């Protein structure tokens, strides 16, 4: 079982869109996939039409007093399940803080699922918190969407440095450019140059496309409602690269 987390300190960069589409494509490939929507705003749950509610809330889940199994919901797609968000997730840092080894908590919770799933995607809220630290420690790989700006590379370097301070397991980092605006020269230039220069930046990129925005109207992965669109093809290429590098 591999754990992949979509993560960036910044908000609105495409973490959820990526987690939703890659988990769908992984399941299409015949892998057994779980997506955990860790964001109390519940965007991923919404996109799969699943109500953001977990029995006993985040507290029971994190403390282990409720079986994770009982809260998992099947999506409309074969081999793809979702562990929904819950409004109480906004207090997860408090709950984690009260446990023994907060940063190892997520890894411990997921370990028993290894006979049910081949891949688990974690969709994180933005920011740095005890929760994100626990996610970073649990993940085998981090998928980091970057808007192509000079500053975004600084964010990536900061993240890498932060991770290198971990003792024990450190996740591999794979960044990729997201929401590339074809009309902006800077976007195009950065997105073309950097993958060749840096090993931790994927070749595949996700352009800014209105089909991706439509996901919130269709409430489904773009690869499901527009399988031949450019958007679907971009996620397909990203998934192929992630699969080759991270699985």
């Amino acid at each position, binding site marked *: 079982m591999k754990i992949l987390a979509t993560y960036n300190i910044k908000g609105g960069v495409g973490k959820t869109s990526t987690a939703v589409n890659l988990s769908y494509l992984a399941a299409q490939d015949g892998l057994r996939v779980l997506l955990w929507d860790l964001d109390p705003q519940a965007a991923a749950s919404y996109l*799969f*039409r*699943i109500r953001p509610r977990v029995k006993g809330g985040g507290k029971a889940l994190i403390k282990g007093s409720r079986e994770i199994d009982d809260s*998992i*919901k*099947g999506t*409309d797609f074969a081999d793809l*399940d979702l562990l929904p968000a819950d409004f109480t997730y906004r207090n997860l840092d408090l709950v984690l803080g009260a446990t023994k080894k907060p940063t190892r908590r997520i890894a411990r919770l997921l370990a028993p699922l290894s006979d049910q799933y081949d891949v688990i995607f974690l969709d994180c809220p933005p920011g740095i918190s005890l929760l994100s630290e626990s996610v970073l420690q649990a993940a085998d790989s981090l998928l980091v969407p970057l808007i192509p700006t000079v500053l975004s590379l600084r964010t990536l370097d900061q993240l890498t440095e932060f991770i290198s301070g971990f003792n024990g397991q450190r996740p591999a980092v794979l960044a990729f450019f997201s929401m590339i605006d074809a009309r902006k020269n800077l976007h195009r230039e950065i997105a073309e140059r950097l993958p060749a220069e840096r090993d931790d930046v994927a070749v595949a990129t996700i352009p800014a496309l209105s089909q991706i925005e439509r996901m919130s109207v269709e*409430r489904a992965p773009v690869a499901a409602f527009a399988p031949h669109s450019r958007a679907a093809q971009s996620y397909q290429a990203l998934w192929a690269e992630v699969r080759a590098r991270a699985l």
Partner: protein
Amino acid sequence: MQTFSHVVELAAGGAGQPSEDDVLAALAPRFTLGAPGRPRTVRRTWLDTFDWRLHRAGLTLEYLTGPRPAELVLSTAAGDLVSQPAGRLAWPALAEDLPPGPVTAVIAPLAGIRALLAAARATSAVQDLRVLNADTKTVAWIRADRTTVDHPAAAQLPARLQVTAVRGYQLQAQRIGEVLAAAAGLNGHPGRPLDAALAAAGQRPEAYSNKISVQLGPGMAARGALQAVLLQLLDTLEANVPGTIRDIDTEFLHDLRVSVRRTRSVLKLAGDALPASLTARFRAEFKWLGDLTTPTRDLDVYLLNYDEMAGALVSGTPAELEPFHAHLARRRGIEQRSLTRGLRSARFSRLAREWRGALTGLTVPRAGERAADLATRRLRGAHRRVLRQGGAISADSPAEQLHDLRKRCKELRYLLEIFASLFDPQAYQRALKDLKGLQDCLGEFQDRQVQQEELREFAGQMMGDRDVPATALLAMGELAGGLGRAQRRARDEFAERFGEFASPASDRRFQELTSSAGTSGGRTGTTGGSARRSANGRAGDAGE
């Protein structure tokens, strides 16, 4: 994959009956249906062993082929489903030869050495429908299934709607099942489709059993009771002939032989309850039939035990023993052919026909002995003989004396089984258990001896073949040694086993049994009353 489903059966659409659309419409407004999937045509084969081991365990096994990959689906009456991919399979087949998976894991131990046969075949039009909640999220699937049976008889089964929950939506699926059931105007669980498929052909599942299930009344005339038992034994015998000829699995022949031996015991022990002219005429014919079946059965026993025997070799190896296996298989082929010839012969069909004629033509006198009295008298006599002959056996008695005692035990056993329905069931089970302990020991003693003798004969036959490696004969020698030791162990245990059988406690249990058969007393019962077949016969099993 294990899932739970809720099945709703629609009444065969007559006037005033709700249609499938009516029933589905009841889901509104809480649920809506997604666009229906494309209908598929699925070929469906229901499978069970000849003696209905799966059905008796409450299980239904189906083999489904069609546009999707073939699968085996096992379901319980409560709605639990397990499935596994199956590939191309042909029936009959042994469960141990099926591809491994969760279905095979459940059925293999149940079916054991019995082959899985097609009990019925059908063609189904299957369509999957999504059930959506207010968020247009799929919470369950409904599989609509319209099945046309084409074997054993043509029949249209009522349409079925099977609701399967999407993970995490069990409560909604339960609700959907209830709504559909209410709309269909049906309550309670629908029957099993296999049962309906068989009913259309005038058949019922679990009709076959190798147990004697004739229900005797204590007041019945003894002759009437024997007539009923013998007719059922003949039914069982005949039921096993086609499977024996087709060589489907070893148990057809086994059950056929048990019927023959039980019949022979009744003929021998009936005394004047049956006309002497009748018993004299058929005893020789049934002996012929019994002898006809012996060589194949002996080889079956060898082959059934072969893996275990080969695995127990210490000096030799299974590979070295292989020529012996080939020899057994070849001999079995030869014996099976001569068995088949015998069962297809005019002599056999005349025996079966005339025996049935003679039995049905028997006149049952109003005055004669009653079944319970005959049973008690015969059982006491047989029991006495076992005690007498067994008591005379000492540590250095010849083997023949133990073989004779084994025959007496068998007679007692068959009497118990034949008259089982006259006794208190618990007293019957206790007495049977006492006897089984002794029988097992005597059986082990004689069977191991016979197998050693046969082994010598096989070795002689194999020497006649060219190119038999010496290592094969050496490995067979090791087998003979193992058999000899097993026989010796059985001989050493005999005194203890017999001691248990002859103990005062066991004797008391036997007395309790015989006195539980409603002998004489106030109730006279109905002399010559007809025998009923009990649905779940509680007679003893067919031990060999």
